C-alpha cells in the first residue's frame, strides 16, 4: 500500500513535468525544444521523486515509531502478564503451602507431668517448621496446657515447659525464635471437661496457633 502510493506520486509528478515542458514549448516540435522539455521534466521528476522519498522516509519513520511503540506496549503487556502469571503461581504455591500447613496436626499431646515430644508428632512439627522457615513473616503462638491433676500454678509452669519443648524442636529445625511465642494456660482451659483418663489426655497438649501465615 505504501509502495503503491509512492509510485502514484512519482507517476503524477512525471506527468505534470512533461505537460509543463510541452506547454512551455508551445506548438513547436523541433528537437531542441523537445530536449529542453524532457530535461525540465526529468529535473521535475527527480525533484518530485526526492520529495516523495523524503516524505516516504518521514512517513516510514513515523510509522516505525508507532510500530515500535505498539511493540513496546505489547512487550510490556506480555511482561506484565508473565509477571502476573508468576505472582499468581507464587500465590497459588503459597496458598498450597498454607493449606498444607493448615492440614498439619495443630495439637501435640503429652504424658502426665511430661514435656517430651513423642515420635508420632514429629511429622507434623517438621511440616510446621518447613512452612515457618520458608515464610519468615509467619508467626505462631504455642499454647501450653495441662490436665486438672496437680496444682494450678505448677501446671502453668508445666504448660510452659511443654510449649518450650515444642518451640525448641521448631528452632532446631531452622525456625526463627522471633516467629514463636509460648503462652501457658496450665489447666485453666481444658478442651475436654471430662475427668476420665481419655479426657485428661486430651487436655495435656500444646496447640500451634498461627497469628499470621
Amino acid at each position, binding site marked *: 500500500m505504501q509502495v503503491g502510493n509512492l509510485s502514484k506520486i512519482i507517476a503524477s509528478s512525471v506527468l505534470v513535468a512533461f505537460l509543463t515542458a510541452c506547454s512551455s514549448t508551445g506548438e513547436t516540435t523541433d528537437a531542441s525544444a523537445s530536449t529542453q522539455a524532457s530535461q525540465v521534466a526529468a529535473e521535475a521528476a527527480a525533484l518530485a521523486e526526492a520529495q516523495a522519498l523524503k516524505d516516504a522516509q518521514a512517513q516510514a519513520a513515523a510509522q516505525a515509531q508507532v510500530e515500535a511503540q505498539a511493540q513496546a506496549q505489547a512487550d510490556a503487556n506480555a511482561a506484565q502478564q508473565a509477571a502476573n502469571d508468576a505472582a499468581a503461581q507464587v500465590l497459588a504455591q503459597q496458598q498450597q503451602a498454607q493449606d498444607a500447613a493448615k492440614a498439619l496436626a495443630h495439637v501435640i499431646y503429652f504424658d502426665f*507431668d511430661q514435656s517430651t515430644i513423642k515420635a508420632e508428632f514429629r511429622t507434623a512439627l517438621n511440616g510446621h517448621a518447613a512452612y515457618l522457615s520458608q515464610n519468615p513473616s509467619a508467626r505462631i503462638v504455642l499454647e501450653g496446657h495441662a490436665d*486438672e*491433676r*496437680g*496444682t*494450678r*500454678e*505448677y501446671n*502453668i*509452669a*508445666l504448660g*510452659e*515447659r511443654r510449649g*518450650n519443648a515444642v518451640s525448641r524442636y521448631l528452632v532446631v529445625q531452622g525456625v526463627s525464635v522471633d516467629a514463636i*511465642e*509460648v*503462652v*501457658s*494456660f*496450665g489447666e*485453666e*482451659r481444658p478442651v475436654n*471437661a471430662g*475427668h476420665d483418663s481419655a479426657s485428661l489426655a486430651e487436655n495435656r497438649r500444646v496447640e500451634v496457633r498461627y497469628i499470621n501465615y
Partner: protein
Amino acid sequence: MRVNKMIQLPQRAPKTMSISVFSAAVFSLLLSFSAWSQSLVIEITQGVDNPVPIAVVPFQWSGVNALNEDVAQVIDADLERSGQFKSLKRSLMLSFPYQKDDVYYRDWQYLATEYLVIGQVLPTSTGGYQVDYQLFDVQRQDAIAGGRFSGGKNDLRALGHSVSDAVYEALTGLKGAFRTRIAYVAADKKVNPSYYKLLVADADGYNAKEILKSSQPIMSPSWSRDATKLAYVSFETNRPAIYVQDITTGQRERIKSFKGINGAPAWSPDGGKLAMVLSKDGNAEIYVLDLTSKRLTRVTKHYGIDTEPAWSVDGKHILFTSDRGGKPQIYQVTLDSGWVERLTFEGDYNARGSLTHDGRFLVLVSRHDDQFHIAVQDLQRGTMSLLTQTSLDESPSVAPNGSMVIYSTQVGGRDILAAVSIDGKVKFNIPANEGVVREPAWSPYLN
C-alpha cells in the same frame, strides 16, 4: 439451700417486739434472700466427736424498725461451723434472757448446756448498731466474758462475727477467724458466654461480691496483709498478667506482664513486697517485687520449675514448689543468703505449701495412690498427715488463726470449696449454686 436456713423466730417474742415489727422482720428476711442468690452454702459434713454444747439466745433488739439480720443466728452458725460446738435449738430453750439478771442457770443445766451466750442490739446515734454480749459458764454459774461491738447500718452480720470471735477465743484460747473473708474464683463453661469471676465473700459464704468478670481465666488470688486488696492473675489480654485491685474501690493496677509466665503472687507479711513467678529469664523462677521501690529481685535460679511462693512468718524465707529433684517437692529459700533446703520427702508430688500463722505446720497438696489430698506436715516433728480423703483436692489456704484450711475439691465432677480443721477432725463443704468455684484464699484478720 439457703431458704431452708430461714431462721426460726423466737417462739416467745421479747416484750418490746410488737406484732407489726414481727411481720416486718419476716418480710425483710424474705427480701434479703434474693440478694443471697450468688452466695455459697455451707454444709457441715464432719465435726469433733464430742462438741461442746452451747446455747446462743436470740439477741434483744430495742430499736424501732425490724432488723434484717438475726445476730444470734449468725453466732450460732459460726460456732457450729467450727465443728467444736453443738448449739442448742431455739425451740428447746425455756427462756430468752438478754441480761444477766434474767439468766436462770438451772434451766440451762437442765438442757445440758455448758455455755450460754446472751446479748442485745442497740441502735447508735449515727444509724448503725451496737451489739452487747455476755458469755456464761452454766456449770460454774459465772460470767466468763462480755463486751460490746459497734458498726454501721450494714455491719450487723460483721458484728455477730465479732461476738463469735470473742466467744471462740474465750472458750478455746485461740483468736476466732469468723470475721474474715474468702476470695475465690468461679467459672461457668456451660453458659454462653462462658465466664470466669473473682469473688469475695464473708467467711461464712454470705455477702458474695464480684470483683472481676472475664471471658479468660482468672487465677491465684492473694490477699494484702490489711485485707483491702487482692493480687491475682488474669488472662484478659490472652496472656497472663499480675494485677492488684482494691476490693472496695475496684481500682486496679497491672503490676507485671512480662513475656511468659506472670503468676502466683504472694504478699509478704510486712505487706511491702510481692513474691511472684516470672519466666522472662527462660523458665519459671521466683522473684520478689518491692512495691515501694518497684525493684524486682530474682530469688531462685534453676532450670527446673520453681513456683508457688509462700512467705515464712518472719518474712525471711520463701517456701516454693520445685521439681529440681525430678518430682515436685516443697523447698525453702533463705532470702539473705539464697540457701535452699528441701522440706518434704514423703511421696512423689508435694506442692503449694503454706505455713500456719505460728509457722509450725506446713499445709500442702500431696499425691498418694494417684490421688491429690490436702496434707499437713508438722515441721517440729517432721511427720506428714493427710487431712482429706477426696481426690483432686487443691489450693489449700489457712485461716489466719491456723484453725481451718479452706481448699477446693471435686464432687460429682464439679469444683466446690471445702474446709477442714488443721487436725482433720472437722469438715464442711461450701458448694456454689452455679458453675464451679475454686482457688479459695482466706483473708487475714480484718481491721
